[in-house]
């Protein structure tokens, strides 16, 4: 399970809610990174040998190996293409968003 965004986050509405001494909760995600992305990875699972290069090399950690198939958290994939570039079986292609 990848960390999830705090969809209920509300900006401070009073002095009491201002982060005291610039301290605030660790591991707290509000905005997605999907806006970085022009191309998205698409897996051809038939060719995947589960070598996990993509899982290891992904700077975002957006690829999950928990299930039977590798999956990508599209909230946090930036579409850099490292996974496709490093895949020894060339089973990941980068597809333009919206196509």
């Amino acid at each position, binding site marked *: 399970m990848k960390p999830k965004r705090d969809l209920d986050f509300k900006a401070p509405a009073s002095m009491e809610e201002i982060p005291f001494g610039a301290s605030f*909760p660790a591991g707290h995600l509000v905005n997605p990174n999907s806006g970085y992305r022009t191309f998205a990875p698409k897996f051809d699972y038939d060719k995947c040998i589960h070598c996990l290069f993509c899982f290891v090399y992904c700077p975002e950690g957006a690829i999950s190996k928990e299930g039977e198939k590798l999956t990508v958290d599209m909230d946090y994939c930036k579409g850099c293409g490292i996974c496709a570039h490093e895949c020894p079986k060339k089973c990941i292609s980068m597809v333009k968003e919206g196509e």
Partner: protein
Amino acid sequence: MGTKAFLSANEAAAHGVRLARPKVISAYPITPQTTLVEKLADFIADGQLDSKYMMVESEHSAMASALGVSMMGARVFTASSSQGLLYMCEMLSYVSGARHPVVMADANRSTATPWNIYGDHRDAMAMRDSGFVQLYVESGQEALDTMIQAYKLAEDPQVMLPVMVNLDGFTLTHTYDLVDIPDQDDVDRFLPPFQTKMKLDFDNPQVLCGTIGPAFHTEGRIQQCEAFEVAKKKIAEIDAEYAKMFGRSYHGMYEEYKCEDAEQVLVATGSLAGTTRVVVDELRAEGRKVGMIKLRSFRPFPKEFFASISGKYKALGVTDKSISFGFDGTIYGDVKASMYGNCGTKMANFICGLGGRDVSKDMIVEMFDVLQNLSDGKSEDEVQFIGKRW
């Protein structure tokens, strides 16, 4: 009941630190602070103090590691002087903004150039806006007592500000006097162990010293300002509580000495207050109506008090062991500003644009509206944050 010993102010301050039981001491040597940190090393070596001693490679690292210690929720102490304090400067602002109750001693010394190891207040005054509470002591006894009070103040949940205890280089740090040393049990009752939620903690993972952009930066600064206002009250309360327990009082933020019927009064700070006290007594014996105001807390500054004595004396002198080049002595500027009520022009202070927050035309109009109110005889807060959220 405590014990008595013949101590320099540095040694007395070290006893104060020992009695406050910091878990860690981090320091780098500089004259005239050295005998203070040496004494602490002695206490640890002799088993009188159970602390870890970090012998860091610079003052910058002394304050940075003190921050690291404080972030683990541990009580910490550091000390410096002069160039060393200036070298620490970056970390002072870091510690105060992060609201970590680090207590330090500054053995006040001039700053180069010219190279000079002797005492004045140019080092601490250069740190005026660092966000540290600045207390100045008159004697070794006051150094010891203030060190303990400083921890109580810094760690008060409503305060949470770092404190710098200033003792004049050589004049105090290296001169000896008879000092009462309180018992550990009594100090433990006065100063309980440090407790905080704002620490690095696996059960409550936090970012400390994070980045806060224009959207909420100003409000954090307002919190800091409010803490200084609270500190004004707490300094007096803590001093009163200390007096009850240990029989010695320093009158909170300032002391009025023989001012009641005085015509000429001098404002004095640190060891100069001791000398002035003597002179006041002597001149009084000659029949002259003189008095002294001892300024113990420079930050927070007792501006309400100074405003209240505007017009009270025939003449008021302010001593300064520092200069704000291109203006006046540093304390004089503050005293004058506090007493401005006599100047005939109504004034207000607008603080705005902190941390990159935009200052809009509407806000400028708001400022003119406040000035209009003042001109029409309406009352307004003197210092106002413009563009604050709430």
